[in-house]
């Protein structure tokens, strides 16, 4: 009995997820030929609520790309994505962790970061930002007057509308 309801649950889950995946995929299928540009894979992941690293994305892309054409076909995308879902490979990051991450960087516990400090971390550590990404982040989040990044204020913007 339990098994039946479990598999029934699984089927329902799959249809829902399938719709979701299909929706995300189609949003980027600009040529209407069931393919998307590999450059969009990251965006598709994020829109589905996953948080892969750049390395994760590269690995995924190399596995599903259509012979270096620069495009990924739905037929290869779907099984690979299903695997990602079932294995929960790129789980979402909880909001609280984001706050704590900022607090770690804010060594003096001032409640803000200076643009130079943030730039230092973002462009030198982890998977470094490009200059463009850095400039954009600073423009978006630096307080006009004080020229600081008040991360507590920034976080709600980053986490808005996450639920689909």
């Amino acid at each position, binding site marked *: 009995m339990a098994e039946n309801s479990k598999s029934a649950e699984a089927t329902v889950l799959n249809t829902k997820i399938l719709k979701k995946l299909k929706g995300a995929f189609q949003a980027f299928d600009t040529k209407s030929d069931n393919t998307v540009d590999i450059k969009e894979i990251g965006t598709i992941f994020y829109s589905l609520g996953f948080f892969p690293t750049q390395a994760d994305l590269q690995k995924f892309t190399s596995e599903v790309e259509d012979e270096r054409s620069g495009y990924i076909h739905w037929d290869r995308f779907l099984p690979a994505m299903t695997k990602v879902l079932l294995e929960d490979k790129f789980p979402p990051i909880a909001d609280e962790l984001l706050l704590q991450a900022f607090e770690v960087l804010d060594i003096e516990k001032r409640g803000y970061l200076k643009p130079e400090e943030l730039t230092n971390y973002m462009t030198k*550590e982890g998977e470094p930002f490009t200059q463009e990404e850095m400039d954009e982040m600073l423009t978006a989040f630096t307080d006009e007057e004080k020229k600081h990044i008040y991360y507590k204020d920034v976080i709600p913007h980053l986490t808005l509308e996450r639920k689909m």
Partner: protein
Amino acid sequence: VGSGKLGTSYPAKLAAILIQRWYRQYVARREMRRRYTWHIFQSIEYSGEQAQIKLYNFLGYLMDNFTPSSNERNLISHIFRENEVCRDAEWERYFCYKNIEVPEIYSGPHLTFPLTVEEAVGLVEAFRNKKQQLHSRYVLQLLLETWKLLRMLPNINRISTCHSKEITICGDLHGQLEDLLLIFYKNGMPSLEKPYVFNGDFVDRGRDSIEILLILFAFLLVYPSNVYLNRGNHEDHIVNLRYGFTKEVLNKYKMHGKRILKLLQKIFSWLPLATVIDQKVLVLHGGISDSTDLGVLARADRHIVRNQHVMTKVVIFPLSLQSISRVFQRRASFTYPKPLGTRDCFQNRSLQDFSDRIRVNMENQLELSRREEPTLNAQINKPEQESLSLPHQILDLLWSDPMTQDGCIPNEVRGGGCYWGPDVTEDFLNRHNLQLIIRSHECKQEGYEFCHNRKVLTLFSASNYYDVGSNRGAYVKLGPDLVPYLIQYQASSMTRELTVRQSVGRTERSALRVLREQLFAHKSDLLCAFRKFDSENTGLVSLNDWASAVESVMHLDLPWRMLRSQLVTCKNSEGTIDYYEWFNESQLSKHIDQSLLETLYRHRSTLETIFRIVDTDNSGFISMQDFRQTWKLLSVYLKMEITDEAISDLAITIDSNHDGSIDIDEFMEAFRLTDKKSRLERGRSMFMGTTSDLTKLEGDPNI
């Protein structure tokens, strides 16, 4: 790194990577939002154009099918007679500016003719710095001189980049003066060393269309061999009725606006259709089709074919109304294969969807005319042969869009022109020995876009077109090597102040408001769709079902689930939506008979356009009699059943001062949609439901 509480010794490196991951996904999701926002604006923009075409078709249909004794026919002939071309001598008398005095207190620019460079530059400065209006005497004078000049120009301008001159080409400006000023600032004003081509759509939507025209015409007069203007689909007085230019002129020039508009009507019809550079690069507003023939176009009488008649496939002007109807009858059996009956059964037909039927016929006609021209022409004399195909050839030039697939199909989204593929480009370029097509007509986020193997370049010069931050503008420089060099920009001081995040949000809010209006306009269809999912009549639907239902009605191909939180605030905790409650979230400001409400709201733009067409002297008022007759027409077109009493009630409600005439603006005010719960953003949106908004921009703190 998984979820869960972090220990206190969390290294900075891991913190950094977490923030990076988070930021990147935020940027990606914002990009998605920007994309669908764009999609919303575009699909609604194009459906507005489609509605315009439907209107043309409808008017043409009426021409075909009303017997002489009907009241409606009087109305139509009244409309068309006013819009007809008269002899030039009569017009010159009407446009005489000589008795218009310029008062002493006028502090704006003074013009003398022939115009000098200093005066043209002075005009630009006056508009830029002091925001002054040019006095109507000078406007009329300038326009008259322009008209005289344009009459001498060929249909297709031919220019060259000799003497190492670079030619600057600009795309759509749409009344956005700051963009033109920005281009002049970056690139310099037109001069002997700096030739310019302006590729159409100078007017409508933006609020300074007349100033743009005056500047362009001034430079055209000063440098006739260095300034070239191509006609766009918005250089058309009927389109202007819907999209704001007519209103702008009437508001800025209260005394002489009507005259100015009539003169512009003639000027528009005399604008050249295209420009060819060095016999290698074709510049035109919309595009081409598989039947575009530059030779035919070069020989045609361009000024006598106008959009409204192009749509209804009228042959040649000047003709009286009677001969037009004779032409229709001659071709009736070809264009309308099924006889539509006498006047009596016409009333009963109000239940049929004429507009769709006409559209289908229109498509058939377009298809047929493309493929069967020889047959059609065989019935008519040879000299007319070319001009029969001329209307749709011009339509193609001004309305077409490129597509990625091969072939050539009617442009159903816009309702006019076609979609043409890379094979058509290839063939066309080879046939005419050209190497590049530069066109405009479509807004592009970067201000430009190449397609068809870089053989077609779309150029759009109105930045922030949909809203602040939505897109850049661009212009092209072409030297003797004919390699396009593109310069991008983004006007408006507001853009600098807004961060990227804010500008996306702002555009998105405008788009969502427009979308909410569209949803409201389709309320009954949506309710029907929801009920299909709600078999037990609980008044609730699941999120998924809500999304499916909405897409099935709206056909906008949008990620509705993602948009849901912005569109519906009454989602309850079980994840279902109370759809009746949803519609109560918005309401209209005035009370109009509820049974008419939704249909009227949906077609408010068309309604307004019809009113303005009927208002032939552009006074802003129409008589009660015309008002009633318009409703009768509309009731047929919109397949509404509307009784005479309902029309009378409506008229009485609207004619608040009981003077026997209706103020159009006041009437349209009834269709302003207000959101009970959310605060309306009053940005520079073109899609407002009411007409007075464009003129209220001055006092708007958000601008």
